[in-house]
C-alpha cells in the first residue's frame, strides 16, 4: 500500500516536470521568433545578414523604422492609412448589418422552414474557398470602375465577415430571455424598437466579440485585398509582401514593418483575450 502511494506520488511529480517542460518549450517556440523579429528591426545594416547571425546588436538603431516612412519609394504610410480605414469601416458595417439580420433570422416566422434554411445558407457562405470568388469579384469591380478603391475592399470584407457575425449574433440572441421582449411586445413595441432599445444593449458583448474577430480578419487579410488593390488601396499585408519581393534582403526595414504589424495584434490579444476565446470556441462546442 505504501509502495503504491509512493509510486503514485512519483508519477505525479514526473508529470508535473513533463508539464513544465512542455509549457516552457511552447512559450519559447512562440516568443523566440517574435523577439528575433524585433531584434532584427533595430540592427544596423551591416549586422542584418552577418554569418553567424548577431543576437545582441552592437548598436541599436531605429533607422529602419524611420526609413519605412521616409523612403520616397515606400508607401507604408498609405498602406497603414488604408488598412485602418478599411478595417474600421468593414467591421462597423458587418457588425451592424449582421446584428440586424441575425435578429430577423431569430424572430422571423415563415412557413416551410424557410428561415432555418436561409440561416443555414448564410452560414454555409462562410465556408467555401474564397479563391472561387476572387476572380469574378475582380472582374465585377473592374466593370464597375471600382478597381483599386477602398470601397471595393470594404464591401468584400463585409461579405467575408457577415456569415460568421450573423451566426455569432444568432447564438447570442438565443441565450437572451424571451420574457423581456414579450413584455415589450405587450406594451406595443414594434420590432425595431425591441431590437434597438432592448436586445441590442443586452447583446453588446456578442457584438464586441463579433467586432473583434472581424477587425482582426480585416487587418490581416491578404488574398482578396491584393487582387483588388494595385496602387491606391493597398493594405498593410500587401506592403509586407511587396517589401519581400522588391527588396529581398533588406532585413532591417522588413523586420521593422513586420514588428509594426505584430505589436498592435499583441496588445489587442492581451486586452481582449477573454472575448476572443469566447468567440473562437463558439461553434466548436455543443452546449
Amino acid at each position, binding site marked *: 500500500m505504501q509502495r503504491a502511494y509512493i509510486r503514485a506520488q512519483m508519477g505525479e511529480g514526473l508529470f508535473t516536470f513533463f508539464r513544465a517542460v512542455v*509549457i516552457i518549450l511552447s512559450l519559447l517556440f512562440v516568443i523566440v521568433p517574435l523577439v528575433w523579429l524585433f531584434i532584427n528591426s533595430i540592427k544596423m545594416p551591416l549586422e542584418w545578414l552577418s554569418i553567424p547571425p548577431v543576437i545582441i546588436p552592437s548598436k541599436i538603431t531605429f533607422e529602419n523604422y524611420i526609413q519605412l516612412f521616409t523612403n520616397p519609394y515606400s508607401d507604408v504610410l498609405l498602406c497603414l492609412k488604408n488598412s485602418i480605414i478599411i478595417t474600421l469601416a468593414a467591421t462597423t458595417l458587418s457588425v451592424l*448589418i*449582421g446584428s*440586424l439580420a441575425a435578429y430577423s433570422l431569430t424572430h422571423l416566422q415563415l412557413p416551410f422552414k424557410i428561415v432555418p434554411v436561409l440561416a443555414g445558407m448564410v452560414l454555409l457562405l462562410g465556408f467555401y474557398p474564397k479563391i472561387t*470568388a476572387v*476572380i469574378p469579384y475582380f472582374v465585377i469591380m473592374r466593370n464597375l470602375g471600382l478597381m483599386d478603391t477602398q470601397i471595393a475592399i470594404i464591401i468584400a470584407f463585409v461579405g467575408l465577415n457577415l456569415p460568421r457575425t450573423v451566426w455569432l449574433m444568432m447564438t447570442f440572441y438565443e441565450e437572451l430571455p424571451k420574457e423581456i421582449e414579450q413584455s415589450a411586445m405587450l406594451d406595443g413595441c414594434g420590432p425595431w424598437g425591441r431590437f434597438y432599445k432592448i436586445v441590442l444593449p443586452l447583446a453588446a458583448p456578442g457584438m464586441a466579440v463579433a467586432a473583434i474577430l472581424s477587425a482582426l480578419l480585416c487587418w490581416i487579410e491578404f*488574398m482578396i485585398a491584393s487582387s483588388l488593390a494595385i496602387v491606391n488601396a493597398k493594405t498593410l499585408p500587401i506592403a509586407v509582401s511587396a517589401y519581400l519581393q522588391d527588396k529581398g534582403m533588406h532585413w532591417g526595414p*522588413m523586420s521593422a514593418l513586420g514588428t509594426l504589424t505584430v505589436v498592435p495584434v499583441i496588445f489587442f490579444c492581451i486586452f481582449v483575450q477573454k472575448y476572443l476565446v469566447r468567440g473562437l470556441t463558439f461553434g466548436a462546442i455543443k452546449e
Partner: protein
Amino acid sequence: MAKRNPFLSETILLLLFLVPLLLVLATTDLYPLAFSTYLSTTSWSLIDRGASAHWVGLSNFQNVLRDTIFLDSFRTSLKFSLGATAAELILGLIIAYMVVGESKTMRVVRTILLIPMFIPGVVVGTMWRMMLNVNAGIANYLLSKVGIPPLSWFSAPGTALPSTILVDIWYSTPFVMIILVAGITTLPANPVRAAMVDGASRWQIFRYIMLPLLAPIITVAALFRFIGSFFVLDHIYTTTYGGPGFMTNVMSFHLYRQGLSHFKLSYVAAASWLMIGFSLIVIVVLTAIRRLLERSAATG
C-alpha cells in the same frame, strides 16, 4: 380605421432587416459564384471582356484535370494538409492538456500561446523566411550550437515542403489548442472523478475516458485545420512562392498565380469548383465521423 394585421407588419419589418445582408452577400458571394459557374463553362477571355465567349461545356474541367501541374499541386496540397493537420492535432492536444486551468498563470500562458494565429500570414512567412535562411538565419545557428549541421529549409526541394509545414504548425497550432482547451474544460466531471476514486493513473484517465469524450471535438478541429490548410496562401506566398521549382506549389497558390498573373480565368473558375467539390466531400466525411463519435461517447 381598418385593423392592420400586426403579424404581417412585423414580418415585413423583419424581412426589411434582412435586406442589407442579402444585398452584400449577393454582391460578394452569390453573383461571383454564379459568374464563376459561367466562367467555368465558357471560353471567356479578359481581353475582349467576354465578347467572344461561347459555351464549351465541361471542357474547361477536362483541361484542368489533364493539367499535370494542377494534379501535382493537388498532391502537394494533400501532403501539406495531412502533415500539418496531424502535427497540429497532436501538438495541440498535448499542449492543451498541459495548459488547462483557471489560474492566472495558465490564462497568461494561453494568451501568449494564442498570439501566432493572429499575426498576418504574410508577416509569419517573412519572419520564418529570415529565421530559416541557410546562412544568416538563427535556426541553423542554434542547430550548430548543439552540433547539428545546417539544414537547407526552404532552399532544397526535399526540405521545402516540411519547412512550410513547420511554419503552419507555428501559425495554426494555437487554434487547435484553444478549441481543445475549451473541449477539455467542458468535459463532464463525473467520469473523471469516478476513475480517480477507482485509483486510475493520469495516463489511464486520459486514454480511456478523456480521449473518447474528446474525439468529436478533435474531429471538428481536424476538419477546420484540414480545410484551412488546404486553402492556405499567405505564408506560402512569402516563404517559398511555390518553389523551389514547384515543390511547394499548393493548390490555392497555383490557382492564385494562374488567375492573377496569367489571367487564365476559366481555368481557375473550373479548378476552384473542383476544389469546392473536394472540400464538400471532406466536410461530409468528417462530419459523419464526428456524429458517430458523439454517439459512442454518449453511450460509452
